[in-house]
């Protein structure tokens, strides 16, 4: 086979538990890299393979992970026939070449009894090109998971014996009344139950024992293994075979059902986690969800560790002491290693397999975002992740999901701060031009008036007019500066609300007192119900809301027209209104009026600063309320805002 491929090719490498697999995977990875081809690493399992020793299945998983690290897309397939599954998959994904390793030599009798996966594959492949490579044995993954192979499950055998004794007892009860074939049925039933409950080994043992007991206890002559009639020999052989097959099939079905259940559980877990993560904002919250879900799925204690600026890991979420019970320094060192290397470490992995904790990196595209540390709840459960090796892969994909959520969170934050930066840049420009204009106008008036006074020789009424001008303009400047100061503080977030529970009346009163001069010629109706509840307010800032709204009302309405201040209590907030009988707002104004430096379309002649309403909005929002403008029935403008009756959470 030529090692160079054409671009647009798709390769598929069959991965198995064979020690030769890693070499095969590396070869294919090189081929793919050389030709820029996409490649898949596929591990196909048939029900028979579910019986493989755990160490072998672990090796298969590690091989699959190796392929993934080398850039393959990895897939696990399950089905009755490995060959069929692989060919179907290859056709679906338009694979151009399938590459498999040479089958490991098997005992002769097995070769006669069953075909190897490769032998299954070849006749089905049709137009697909299948290559068989003889990989050299790789030394590495032999010790990948140094957990001992599963020992005999004595408990299973004991339980099987129990069923056997029970069946024998029933047969003794039935013996006086039933024919012998009926007793055989009882034993067959017993073997099937054993197979389902305890697995294949105990079932086959029981089928043998059942035959012996049947012979010894019930077949005449009783209490001896000798047999009177030859026909019973046939019965024994058939009984043993039938029992064996039933036991075998039952156990197989059970394993398949278990595999399906596991698969389903994993899918459900992935789905649950992704759904929860989708609805979660904030790095800590995301990790909280991840730690909760993962400790539930894997029956373990979990902690999320995040790096600081210098790349040192620190616990972020979870109960640290529950996971790191001793050797904290060593364990954190191991976590640090896993973080820096971007590989799993600790429990059951090549690096410190003796550690009671498993460290799983959270890998994003550019970097490792953190580490999940898992400690099994039951320290004796050496099979914690093993009985279903694929759980290790599930754990990895869950970690990836969490990392993805974290990465998205980070990107959103970055995008938001970029947006904020752009927005504040725009505001700064707008502020500069607006403030320059607004500061210069009153200053020009003051300087002009003062210089003409200094020149002297002005008639007394003219001089007085100049002085009034200076005074008014100076006051206007003062108000502008006050508003600018508040706005700058609110915008920069340095202004802390000093909220105290108080009657709204007090704030309204202070504002009306302050504006006594401007309002003296206007009827101002204040309609505050006597039972209005007290509301948490920053007195000085809230006063500014009323001052700005009242000043606006004065500025944009003819002198002498009335102003209304009203409030009423709603369920959890006050709704406050400052309304006038002026010209009202144009539809365009209603939407934009609270933007900084926006001036109403009808405000050309009246001089405003475009700041007043923006401050109102900032203050109202800082209190947790909202503000909006409306046109009143019967004409005029109404500014309405809400103030929550309970202070917003800080």
């Amino acid at each position, binding site marked *: 086979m030529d090692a160079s491929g054409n671009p647009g090719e798709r390769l598929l490498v069959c991965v198995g538990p064979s020690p030769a697999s890693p070499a095969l995977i590396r070869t294919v990875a090189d081929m793919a890299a050389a030709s820029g081809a996409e490649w898949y690493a596929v591990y196909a399992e048939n029900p028979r393979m579910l019986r493989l020793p755990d160490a072998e299945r672990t090796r298969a998983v590690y091989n699959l992970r190796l392929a993934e690290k080398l850039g393959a897309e990895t897939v696990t397939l399950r089905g009755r026939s490995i060959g069929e599954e692989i060919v179907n998959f290859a056709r679906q994904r338009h694979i151009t070449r399938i590459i498999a390793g040479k089958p490991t030599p098997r005992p002769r009798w097995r070769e006669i009894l069953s075909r190897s996966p490769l032998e299954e594959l070849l006749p089905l492949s049709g137009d697909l090109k299948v290559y068989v490579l003889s990989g050299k044995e790789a030394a590495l993954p032999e010790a990948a998971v140094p957990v001992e192979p599963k020992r005999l499950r004595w408990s299973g055998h004991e339980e099987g014996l129990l069923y056997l004794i029970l069946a024998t007892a029933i047969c003794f009860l039935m013996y006086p009344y039933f024919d012998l074939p009926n007793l055989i049925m009882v034993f067959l039933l017993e073997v099937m139950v054993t197979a389902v409950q305890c697995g294949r080994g105990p079932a086959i043992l029981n089928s043998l024992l059942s035959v012996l007991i049947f012979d010894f206890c019930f077949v005449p002559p009783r209490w001896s293994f000798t047999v009177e009639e030859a026909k019973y020999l046939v019965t024994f052989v058939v009984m043993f075979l039938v029992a064996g097959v039933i036991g075998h099939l039952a156990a197989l079905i059970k394993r398949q059902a278990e595999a399906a259940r596991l698969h389903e559980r994993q899918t459900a877990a992935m789905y649950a986690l992704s759904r929860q993560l989708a609805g979660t904002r904030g790095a800590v919250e995301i990790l909280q969800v991840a730690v909760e879900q993962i400790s539930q799925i894997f029956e373990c204690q979990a902690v999320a560790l995040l790096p600081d600026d210098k790349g040192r890991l620190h616990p972020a979420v979870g109960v640290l002491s529950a996971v790191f019970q001793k050797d904290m320094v060593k364990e954190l060192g191991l976590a640090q290693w896993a973080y820096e290397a971007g590989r799993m470490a600790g429990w059951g992995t090549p690096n410190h397999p003796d550690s009671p904790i498993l460290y799983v990196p959270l890998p994003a595209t550019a970097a490792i975002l953190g580490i999940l540390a898992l400690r099994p709840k039951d320290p004796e459960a050496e099979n914690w992740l093993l009985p279903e090796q694929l759980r290790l892969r599930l754990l990895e994909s869950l970690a990836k999901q969490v990392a993805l959520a974290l990465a998205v969170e980070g990107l959103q934050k970055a995008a938001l701060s970029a947006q904020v930066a752009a927005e504040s840049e725009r505001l700064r420009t707008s502020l500069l031009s607006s403030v320059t204009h607004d500061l210069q106008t009153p200053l020009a008036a003051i300087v002009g008036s003062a210089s003409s006074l200094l020149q002297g020789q002005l008639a007394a009424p003219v001089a007085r007019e100049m002085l009034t001008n200076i005074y008014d303009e100076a006051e206007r400047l003062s108000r502008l500066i006050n508003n600018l100061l508040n706005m700058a503080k609110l915008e920069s977030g340095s202004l802390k609300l000093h909220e105290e529970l108080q009657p709204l009346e*007090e704030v309204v009163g202070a504002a009306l007192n302050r504006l006594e001069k401007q309002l003296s010629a206007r009827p101002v109706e204040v309609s505050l119900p006597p039972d209005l509840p007290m509301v948490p307010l920053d007195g000085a800032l809230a006063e500014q809301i009323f001052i700005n709204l009242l000043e606006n009302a004065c500025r944009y309405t003819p002198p002498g027209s009335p102003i209304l*201040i009203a409030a009423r209590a709603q369920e959890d907030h006050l709704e406050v209104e400052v309304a006038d009988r002026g010209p009202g707002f144009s539809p365009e104004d209603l939407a934009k009026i609270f933007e900084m430096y926006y001036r109403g379309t009808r405000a050309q002649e009246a001089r405003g600063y475009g700041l007043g309403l923006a401050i109102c909005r900032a203050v109202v929002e800082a209190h947790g309320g909202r503000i909006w403008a409306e046109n009143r029935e019967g004409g005029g403008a109404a500014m309405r805002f809400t103030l929550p009756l309970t202070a917003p959470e800080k």
Partner: protein
Amino acid sequence: MSRTGWVVLVIEDEVPIRRFLKAALEGQGFKLLEARTGTQGLSLAASHNPDIILLDLGLPDVDGLEVIKGVRAWTRTPIIIISARGQDADKIAGLDAGADDYLTKPFSVEELAARMRVAIRHLSQSPLAKEEPVFQTGELKVDLARRLVWVAGEEVHLTPIEFKLLAALVRHSGKVVTQGQLLRQVWGQAAEEQAHYLRNYIHMLRHKLEADPARPVYLRTDPGVGYRLKCRD
């Protein structure tokens, strides 16, 4: 009251403000002492024993608060704080440290004159002099000795705490009284969490004393600082 001969010490580093104060105050017959720094101000206060002190809080050398404490260490000479906007916390600290009142820049000559008038009047009726038993401002009349209150000739019934609060304001009528001072004088200690009791009692007092509680004439709020009862007629 005759203002001729009253000595005013102005502790202020800004020349334009000093120039304006000089023009305004000397025109009204006050004698002016000027200090550019807190240290200079303290030594002038000690050497010349002024009748009233105007103190800017933003001094170049020492904190205005230190000047207040320094002066209060040996004299009850009225001190009026002159502060910039947004210095509410400093204002309150100054008032609690013994300053009599405050003005926020920019202020008019009328405001300044009114504050000084009140401060000087309070000085003339020092606690050694006997308190005038009946206080009257506008339609509001308070008999401190007999614990009676009238509005427009009609007697108003106050609860003991309401009366105590009103009496505290009457004793400082025309001057601002901080929330902390009122809490101490009425409830005995300035418990922060009791601040909303105070507001509640002020609210009830207004409903009993004011014709329109939302536009108070007698009992006014200085937002962020405290309360001020209209000064004696």
